[in-house]
């Protein structure tokens, strides 16, 4: 695993859960995008996940779809997002993750993408349409570049497949406790606890939960079971409505980060 990601989880273990904040790269525009990311890290996010906009984001709900579409229309490219990550890396020591769909990575070339990501200071890549069965070539490229892989695990995943997923994780496992795409939800899935227990029994990898988490209360609730919490749509929606003033975004991240203090996985 990348040192930065490993240190992040180890430094807080037993004290609090980590907060991973998502931002659609190039949204609302390239220059502001960097400010958004740095503001979130400054306000208490432990790591950032930069979304590379894709034309057909099947795992994303309306908020991130719309932000991706907007960024694409302004000329966001995978190469541009790698530059963005490099710019963030210059200013911040915390882990930087990229999130993208498989086709842009495949088109870029797996080895080239992994190598360039590491050159730009990226610690890991999240690819939601690359399940463990298809992940072999990407994991080989990532391992060679010393880039962390982050496979997904869902509440519908069988025990056999949790084992397979565990072998693919060199960063952490991205756990999805409710069925659906990214977006804001009213409550945390009642299946979350038993689901994470099942996964925890079968892997040593850190577990981060994403999808549908939008409030400090939800962060705290999820933090009782998971090592990390990933927040996306709620932050992107705040950016979209902010008109360039990032005070509200900082406040939101501070609230979520604060809610995770003293909360740690009891499992």
């Amino acid at each position: 695993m990348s040192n930065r990601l490993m240190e992040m989880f180890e430094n807080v273990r037993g004290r609090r859960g980590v907060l991973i904040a998502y931002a659609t790269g190039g949204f609302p525009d390239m220059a502001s995008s960097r400010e958004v990311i740095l503001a979130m890290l400054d306000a208490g996010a432990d790591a950032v996940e930069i979304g590379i906009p894709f034309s057909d984001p099947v795992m994303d709900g309306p908020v991130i779809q719309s932000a991706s579409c907007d960024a694409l229309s302004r000329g966001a490219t995978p190469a541009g997002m790698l530059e963005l990550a490099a710019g963030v890396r210059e200013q911040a020591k915390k882990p930087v993750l990229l999130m993208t769909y498989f086709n842009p990575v495949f088109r870029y070339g797996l080895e080239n993408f992994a190598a360039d990501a590491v050159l730009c200071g990226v610690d890991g890549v999240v690819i939601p349409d690359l399940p463990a069965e298809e992940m072999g070539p990407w994991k080989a490229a990532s391992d060679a570049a010393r880039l962390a892989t982050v496979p997904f695990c869902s509440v519908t995943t069988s025990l056999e497949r949790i084992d397979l997923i565990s072998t693919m994780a060199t960063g952490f496992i991205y756990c999805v406790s409710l069925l659906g795409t990214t977006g804001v939800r009213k409550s945390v899935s009642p299946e979350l606890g038993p689901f994470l227990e099942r996964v925890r029994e079968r892997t040593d990898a850190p577990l981060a939960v994403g999808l549908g988490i939008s409030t400090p209360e939800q962060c705290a609730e999820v933090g009782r079971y998971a090592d990390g919490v990933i927040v996306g749509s709620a932050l992107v929606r705040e950016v979209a409505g902010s008109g360039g003033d990032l005070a509200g975004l900082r406040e939101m991240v501070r609230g979520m980060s604060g809610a995770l203090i003293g909360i740690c996985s009891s499992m």
Partner: protein
Amino acid sequence: MAEIQDDFERAADPALSTRPGYYGGFGGRFVPEPLMAALEELDYALQGVCEDPVFRRELERLLRDFAGRPTPLYHARNMSREAGGAAIYLKREDLCHTGSHKLNNSLGQCLLASHMGKSRVIAETGAGQHGVACATAAALLGLECEVYMGEVDIERQAMNVFRMELLGARVIPVGTGSRTLKDSVNAALRDWVENVRTTHYCMGSVVGPHPFPAMVRRFQSVIGVETLEQFDEVEGRLPDIVVACVGGGSNSIGIFSPFIGKGPTLVGIEAGGVGSSPGEHGGSLCLGDVGVLHGAMSYLLQDEDGQVAETHSVSAGLDYPGVGPEHAYLKENGLATYELVGDDEALEAALFLTRGEGILPALESAHAVAYARRTAETLGPDKRIVVCLSGRGDKDIDTLRERFG
């Protein structure tokens, strides 16, 4: 209908030997994790029903008594004479209930969904033919049906939208992306991720993650199995050329399936649209590159960054940037060839067949008709071409009126 019973064995994929779910290097399951369990469940259920005599008898009965199979293989004498060369036969999928081959697949999948205990089916549709077929099968089997359709397609296929609603289905407009078929697949996939426990996604073509390409092939191979027997009965041999249009590629895989590697030249016709620049056509195999869309590795129209390209065709059913993975395999291995026919030539061919034979073809199918017309005249009278006439053209009346009215 003994031939349908054999259909399942004969449709067994020769190409599926490398890795499960792969055709050579194409296919696979590139989907969000929450769908993986559903795909495994579907694969398991599919294998079960293929061996289940009760299911097979029920599907045979529906194909015969409800869909009207077998569809005729028709020797188009006027068209052959006018083209002046090879004899042309039409496999009349336009005479299948609901007006296209799409019902073969929808009946199979909706029956399977019932067997799996799913109460709801969802579908994507472009021209609306798959949506209508799915709504029809759902009405028959008492399933709730919701169909995702791009706003652009809703506008140009208004009649089919109303047909679906009459059948009790709900049509959900898709306003994201290019607002056409590709985006309605995205929307249906998102719905499936959310409702995977109660819902079956009835995919309309041989695209998507495994087992969809293999399953849709299986249900559509009835076209080819019938054609093989009907042609043999009349001619006592195999045809020289079998031609079909290719959007996602279901009618073409259906008719190709028993002929692959058996001698006949198999030709898939993609939408040449109005030109060869990006956004002017739908030629994934002819003009695209390898990539991943909608859960499968195949050929894809995309830009240098891997963003999926816009497409164009006068026929909504061919207006799609991807293509089924088995077609990519057939192309790479020289087992089938793929060619382009443009909007104008397809429209002319539609008029030619309507005036010459009294058959109004769907504009999708007219692409294959155009190829047969231009090829027949280069061949001797001893040659035989079979065209898959995948659907009828009533839905395209407005487009035809604009052009010829």
